[in-house]
């Protein structure tokens, strides 16, 4: 018999309680994974979307907390383009549109004939011709939820747009967008002559000192604007920061609840095994070995819960990805390092939560415990 057998047998003795406890830990782990998964996939979704477009720097209005809520005069773009080292400037307007059947869709407006359109990978159809109006391109991840397709229409605020192309873009965000000519989206939003951000390309994106220099000059020249590097978007965006904070908060609570469930179970288990723990002591088990047994039981419970929790986390993210408000935005994969980190956290907290019950087991009066019938 191995040491672990004793711990496993003790858990096996109360199969329902042990399973429920493991399930409680699993729910906590699953919740942590799902919450961090949402915030991670939105972070990555944005960064990858702008990366895929070839955007090196983003210009936004300085005081706007979010990238697509500010308004900047469209003609500022020409002044930006005149700065030495800036290769191209593309204005962009964005809005979250509430579509038919409550689907939320991120709509982008790009100037026809501009650079951004050529960054798209087209599955079918074409990009708009210069000056073309009343047309739309749909990201392949949004086709199903919009119930549309090439040659059909999408309605934005009751105005129909002809779908002339279906595109694919890496980055979950970009892939589920709806793209319109800038002038059309300006009309829809009542923002004629305005954009929310500028996508900037620089001459030498690989040279970080050069990029920093360009950025510094841009900041001096345009004090009313903020310039973000694409890789920093998730740190800069207020919404993404808020989401991360919420996800941390909920994850922490879930982890605490998981610990309490485990703590409660182990305390009960120690309490009802008073006599057996006394016997172990009478047989010459050292306090360390007895402590090891209880901690091992907590460890086994949290390991089972952790593994089950990873499955629950997957299922949770998959389930949420079918929610019409989230469709296309969520990346349902959980990277291996994140999985291992969460599992490690569960095991660590599990061991920690078993220390108190183990300590209680050690404080036991052995003679009383043995007398107890």
């Amino acid at each position, binding site marked *: *018999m*191995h*040491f672990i*057998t*004793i711990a496993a*047998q*003790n858990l*096996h*003795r109360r199969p329902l309680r042990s399973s429920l406890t493991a399930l409680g830990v699993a729910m906590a782990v699953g919740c942590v994974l799902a919450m961090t998964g949402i915030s991670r996939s939105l972070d990555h979704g944005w960064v990858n979307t702008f990366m895929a477009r070839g955007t090196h720097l983003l210009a936004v209005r300085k005081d706007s907390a979010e990238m697509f809520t500010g308004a900047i005069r469209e003609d500022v773009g020409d002044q930006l383009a005149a700065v030495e080292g800036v290769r191209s400037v593309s204005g962009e307007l964005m809005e979250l549109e509430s579509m038919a059947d409550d689907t939320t869709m991120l709509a982008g407006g790009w100037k026809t004939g501009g650079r951004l359109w050529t960054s798209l990978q087209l599955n079918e159809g074409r990009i708009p011709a210069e000056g073309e109006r009343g047309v739309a391109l749909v990201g392949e991840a949004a086709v199903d939820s919009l119930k549309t397709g090439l040659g059909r229409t999408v309605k934005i605020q009751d105005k129909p747009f002809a779908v002339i192309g279906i595109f694919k873009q890496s980055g979950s965000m970009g892939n589920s967008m709806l793209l319109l000519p800038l002038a059309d989206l300006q009309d829809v939003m009542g923002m004629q002559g305005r954009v929310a951000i500028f996508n900037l390309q620089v001459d030498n994106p690989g040279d970080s000192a050069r990029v920093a220099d360009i950025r510094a000059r841009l900041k001096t020249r345009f004090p009313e604007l903020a310039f973000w590097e694409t890789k920093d978007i998730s740190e800069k965006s207020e919404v993404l920061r808020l989401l991360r904070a919420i996800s941390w908060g909920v994850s922490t609570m879930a982890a605490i609840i998981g610990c309490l469930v485990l703590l409660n179970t182990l305390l009960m288990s120690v309490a009802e095994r008073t*006599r*057996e723990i006394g*016997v*172990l*002591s*009478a*047989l*010459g*088990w*050292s*306090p360390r*070995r007895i402590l090891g047994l209880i901690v091992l039981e907590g460890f086994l419970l949290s390991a089972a819960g952790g593994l089950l929790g990873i499955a629950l986390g997957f299922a949770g993210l998959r389930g949420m990805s079918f929610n019409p408000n989230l469709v296309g935005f969520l990346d349902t994969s959980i990277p291996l390092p994140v999985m291992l980190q969460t599992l490690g956290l569960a095991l660590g907290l599990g061991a920690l939560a078993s220390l108190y019950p183990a300590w209680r087991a050690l404080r036991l009066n*052995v*003679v009383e415990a*043995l*007398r107890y*019938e």
Partner: protein
Amino acid sequence: MPDVLVAVRNVSRAYSDGSVTALDNLSLTLERGDYLALTGPSGSGKSTLLHLICGLDQPSRGEIQFEGRHPGSAHEWSRLRSRRIGLIFQSFNLLPTLTALENVEVPMFGVLPRSPDRARHATALLDRVGLAQRLHHRPGQLSGGERQRLAIARALANSPDLLLADEPTGNLDSKNSRDILALLEELHHERGVTLVIVTHDPEIAGRTRRILRLLDGRIQSDTRQEA
């Protein structure tokens, strides 16, 4: 000069703010190879004395020595219980989730590091106490007599010098009582193990080499007889 295994020196054990005195300034020595019956009415302090001798309980006053040394810490006492002292209880105190074989292996953790060695040794011990056919039964599937045999095998796990049995036949019928007693005596002779049996049974007490009678936490009589 007799070979003293355990020395109890002026030991008192008081309970609940001193109003109950379980043992009162008691002294005695146990010699290696002793076979002793500890008797006395219920409440006279027999179990208390046993618990003090193996370090499960600590005296309020006085000192216990094992082989001339006073074990100063809980750790030293658990090491003694692990390797030198075997305990047998009236109510068996077996671990219900483990098989007979596993129960005997429990004390071997930390003494025999390899699992196959533990299993082999435990099998031999169970064979010795007549439970070769019951290795994989749990305590709940064994009769009272078998449970006490199992407990004896477990007490022998690390070849102790001293066996302390607190009313080992108290829960058994007379046939099983005789068998268990016979087994303990055989082990005493065959392994030279020092044996202390707490008992109310005059028949058992009549067979031992030495009878210690307690009354109200004091020694009423300590008699030796020819076996």
